[in-house]
Each structure stands twice: as C-alpha cells, then as structure tokens.
C-alpha cells in the first residue's frame, strides 16, 4: 500500500499553488511585454507610414506646382494646376517607353509652349483619401487624410496649402491626445512668374 501511494505521489497543494503563481506571473509578464512590443511596433509603423504619406503628398504637389502654367482653387478646395503637354503622346501617363519630349516653340504672345493644349492636374480630398487626378483619371496618393485646404492668396506667384492626416495609431479610445498631423506646402510657381 505504501508503494502504491508513492507511485501516485504528485505535487503537494503548496507546490502546485507556488508553481501556478509563478507561472502566472511569468506568463502575464510575457503577454504584457509582447502586447507592449506589438503596440510600440504598431505605433512606430503608423508613424512611418504617415510620414511617408506626408512626404509623398508634399512632393507630388511641389513637383506639379513648380512646372505649372496656372494654379487655381475652387470653393470645394480642389487645387487645379495646368502643365504643358510636354510629351508627344500619353501626357496622362508618360513613361520612357511610351512618350517623347516635344521641342518648345513660341506661342502667339511670344511665350514658350510645347504641345497643343495643357494637362490638367487636380488635388483634392475624397473621404479619407487624397487624390491626384490627371486629365480626369484619379489616383489615390495618400490615405487617412482628414482635411485639405489651399490658403487664399495670389495664385499667380505661389501655392500654399495644408493637409491634415488622422493619427493612424491611437492607444486611447477616440481621437487620442493628438487630433492629427498637419503639413504645410508652399511652392513657388516658376512658370507663372516667368511670364509676368
């Protein structure tokens, strides 16, 4: 009987409680640490993505405004710029393989022109997306946008606008301590000024 009891001997209650307690502490620490790591990673990733979006929007607008002939904004905060038709084809989507540069010439007013007509590029917010539309073909160039505005000004010399992005990572419910990140873009219209 003694041998049988020894063979079935397990942990004592105290041992079990100690083991469970220690295990719980270790596992809880692991889980909390893992969650914290994931949360930190998600926050950093969100920051990086947001920064990439902000850079891209700013760079797109600056690139197009620098080469624009005209710039205007309507009541819905749609920024419209026109650029020369610089290519012999596919001005909507010029690539090295499908478009060639045309030679400049003088127009009737003695100004430089390339191909006939112009290419119209619009920038606007659509829901939470930020759109770049080339001759009626829209492309999303950034997401998570909460506001876009063009500063009222003399659009014959420069274009100033602001784009606000929602925070992509919020720990607290609701918008969190940061309501959003706003970037400001101020670009000189080189061609418009050259024509003054």
């Amino acid at each position: 009987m003694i041998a049988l009891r020894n063979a079935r001997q397990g942990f004592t209650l105290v041992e079990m409680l100690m083991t469970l307690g220690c295990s719980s502490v270790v596992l809880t620490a692991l889980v909390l640490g893992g969650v914290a790591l994931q949360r930190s990673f998600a926050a950093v990733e969100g920051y990086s993505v947001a920064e990439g979006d902000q850079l891209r929007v700013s760079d797109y607008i600056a690139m197009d405004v620098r080469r624009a002939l005209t710039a205007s904004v309507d009541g819905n905060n749609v920024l419209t710029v026109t650029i020369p038709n610089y290519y012999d084809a596919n001005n909507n989507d010029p690539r090295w393989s499908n478009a060639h540069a045309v030679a400049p010439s003088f127009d009737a007013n003695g100004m430089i022109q390339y191909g006939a007509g112009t290419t119209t590029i619009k920038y606007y917010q659509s829901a939470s997306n930020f759109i770049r539309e080339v001759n009626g073909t829209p492309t999303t160039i950034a997401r998570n946008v909460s506001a876009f505005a063009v500063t009222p000004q003399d659009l014959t010399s420069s274009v100033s606008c602001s784009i606000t992005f929602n925070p992509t990572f919020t720990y607290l419910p609701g918008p969190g301590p940061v309501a959003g990140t706003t970037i400001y873009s101020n670009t000189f219209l080189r061609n418009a000024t050259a024509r003054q």
Partner: protein
Amino acid sequence: MQQRASNMKTNPSTNERGAILLTVLLTVTILTMLCFTSLYIASQNANATAQAASWQQALGGAESAVDQAIAALNTGTWTNWITITGSLPNLQPQPGATPAAASGPPASNQYNYLSNSITPQLAQYNVANALTTNGEGNSLVSVWTTIDTAGLPLDSNGNQWYRIRATGTAAAAGPPRVSNQGLDSSLRKIGLRFDRKTSNAISSPQATRTIEVIVQGLAQSIWVRGITLKNTISMSGGGVIDSFNSSDPFKSTNGAYDVTKRQSHGDVATTSSGNSNLNNTYVYGNLAYSGSAVKNTTNVQGTISTPFNTSIPSTSDPSWTSGMWNSSITQVTGTTTLTGGTQSSPARYKLSQINISGSNVLTLTANSDGTDTYFEIWITGKMTTSGNAYITQDPKVHVTYWVDDDISLSGGSYVNRGGVAADLVINGIGTHNFTDSGGATLTAVIDAPGYNITISGGGSVSGAVIANTLNLSGGSGLHYDEALNTNGTNSAIGNYAFASWFEDTR
C-alpha cells in the same frame, strides 16, 4: 520498496526540467521573431526614407547643373564645356575621345555639354567625378547638362533663347529593395537593378530626375540702380533711399513699396560728385562716385566706392514725322481727357505745353475693353501742374513722355494709379529743371540726364532716376523698383532668366 518509492519521486522532477526548456525555447523564439520582424520593418522604413531623400537630392543636382549652364551663358565662360555637332540626343551624350572645347553658346546645329561623370572630360578637362556630401545616407550625386537652341528662332528683340536640359542622379542608400511605401513607386521611380532610361544594369539603387529649362536673354537695363547722376546729389530732411521689387510679393505689397519689405538695393552713383552731401540720411544701398568725397555718408548701409565711371546715354526727341500724331490737340491748359491706343499703335500727342492749374485735371484714360493702353506724348514746351491740379493715368495705362523744357509738378502732382513705375516714363531732353513739390509719391522712371531735379514736399519717387543733379529735401526720398532692371531699352543681353521650367517625369 523504499528505493523504488524514491525513484518514483524523482522522475517527475526530470519531466519538469524538460518542460522548462521547452517553454524557454518557445519564449526566446517568439521574442526573436518579434525583434527580427521589428528590425526588418524598421530597415524597410529606413530604406523608404533613404529613397525619398535621394529623390530630392537628384533634383538638387539637376538644378545645380542648370545653374552652371546659366552661369556659362551669363559670364561667357565655358570652361570644361564641350561642343558637339548634331541634334540633342534623348539619352546622355557620348562624346568622342577628343571632344571640341566650347568657346561660346551653341549654334543652331550644335549643343554644348557638361558632365561630371564621363571619362573623356575627366581626362581632358579635369572635371571632378561627382559632387560629394558628408553625413548619413547618400553621399554621391552626379549631374550632366546640355544647352541648345531647340530650334527656337530669335525673339522679337533679336535674342536667341536656349534650352537647358539637366539630369541629376543620386545614389539611393540601402539594398535594391522596393519601398514599403507602395504609393511611392509611381512618384519616385527609383532604379534598383537597371537604369530605367538606358536599361543598363546599375550596381546600386539610384534616383534620377531631369528638368528642362528655357532661358531668355534679358536686355541690359539702364535702370540697374536707383539713382544715376552726372553730378551732385544732395539730401536733407530725413528721407531715405532704399529699394523694393514690384514684381515680387515678398518684396512689395500689391506691387507697391512697403517699408516693412524694404530691400537694400537703392544704389546711388555719380560720375562727378562735386559738392554732394547726404547729410547723414539713410541710404539702403551702395554709393559709388568719382570726384570729391561725398559728405556725411555715415548712414550709407551698403558699400562706398570710388571711382565710378559709366556712359550715361543721352536722350532725344522721338523721330515722328507729320501725320504720326493726333493733331486735334496741340496743348493742354484745362481739364482734359485723352484716349490711348494699343502697344503696336499707341496714341501719340505732340503738345506745345501742358499747363494746368486750379482744380483742372488731365486724365489719361484706359481703353474701355480693359486692355493695356498706350500713350506717347511729346511736349515741346513746359510741363506744369500747380494749385490743386494734377495729371492722372488709369491702371493698365502706359505712358512715355518726351519733354523739351522744364517740368514742374506741384499740388496733386502726378497720379500713376497703376502703381507701376515702368508704366510712366519721363524723358527729359536737353538741360532744364525738374521740380516735384507735391506731397504724393511720384511713381515713375525719370530719364533726364541733363536735368537738375528737385524733389521736395515730402513725396518720394518710387522708381528710378537718371539726372544731372538730384536734390531730395523735405523728407522726400527714393524707392528704387528692382523690377526695372529688366525693362531697359538697351538691347544688349545682360543676363539670362527662366522663361519656362519643366520636370520630365518619365
């Protein structure tokens, strides 16, 4: 039995050690994966940022190449440039082993070429291989640029315009890996394994940007400074000489002088200073003179230099023949309204005098259709306003006067409502006097190299002056409009400026 019981008690301990090992291994594996994933994503983010930075650097390189081209055109210095006969290629030119050194701007069947990345020029002209920078990320930017006429004819001034194409290439630090910012690809077009234009294999990722600039030759202006005199300048009363730029919103407000946007190019020069005295009034610009030292120059904010020698062009009456002007009006002595013409056919009036007094007003009215309106008025006698009388010209009206006698503006003086100095040109012919004693600002350019000009009454001149002598008193000053520097009448090219700027985003 006791021994067996002891064994039975120790076996579970062995199993426990195995469980702990497994748990530790699992935990370490999970943590390692977390760390690895984080590092991988972090490296991707760094990669995307480096590519974006290189994309910006490439544009900086291309713009610096354009600057080199404009500098060569402006200065006529073509060191390191070569001239290649033929039409401009789509891709980077490949000159022969002994290219011809450029000696000037290219002819219509040629183009000039400068690069810092090809062997022939390295050997022949000792051009540095690339621009290098210090710091994190990319440290290598290479550029090349061409200049050609692009088949453009001479402009209406007989000047040749040039096309400058420049390409900047910046190495994108990091491995040849597509950015994790998926939407970046169509914007930045980073070359990872191949050059996207030549399809040649590349050893490391790179960003390439190309811009095309058309430059036009600008006339060498006679209005290169605010005040150009043959003889003395006298100032008193606390007026100032400074500058603004009516075409730059950062240097003017709605095209008009704004003291808060004051510039420091109100230069003053005289070829014979005589008894010049600035009376310690402020000059926000440089002073240059020949002759005796100008007195009381403490508050000249720029440099003071001597000697100053220049040829001041003389003025002369227009060479009109009978029938070229509106003969229905021969003089203006009361309230009068004159109508204008177009740039190609300006309204011309030849008057024996303008002499208005009391409350009379001479109005130069704009075309009713809103187009620019042009007047040319030749006054063979005096031009005088007195009392409350004044002359006014509407916005978008451009007037050129030739006056053969004294000019005296008082009372309301002269109101240039457009506020642009270039729109009111007063040419004084011969040796006479010009007096402006009105309290308002006279927005004009005055080319009267034989006139002794006196500005008093507190009103200033906004524009520029060429005269024999100049006396600014009673708080009157001069605000030089820097925009005049491109509006000269001398056809010699002073420098080149952008007429068009375009980035080729293929």
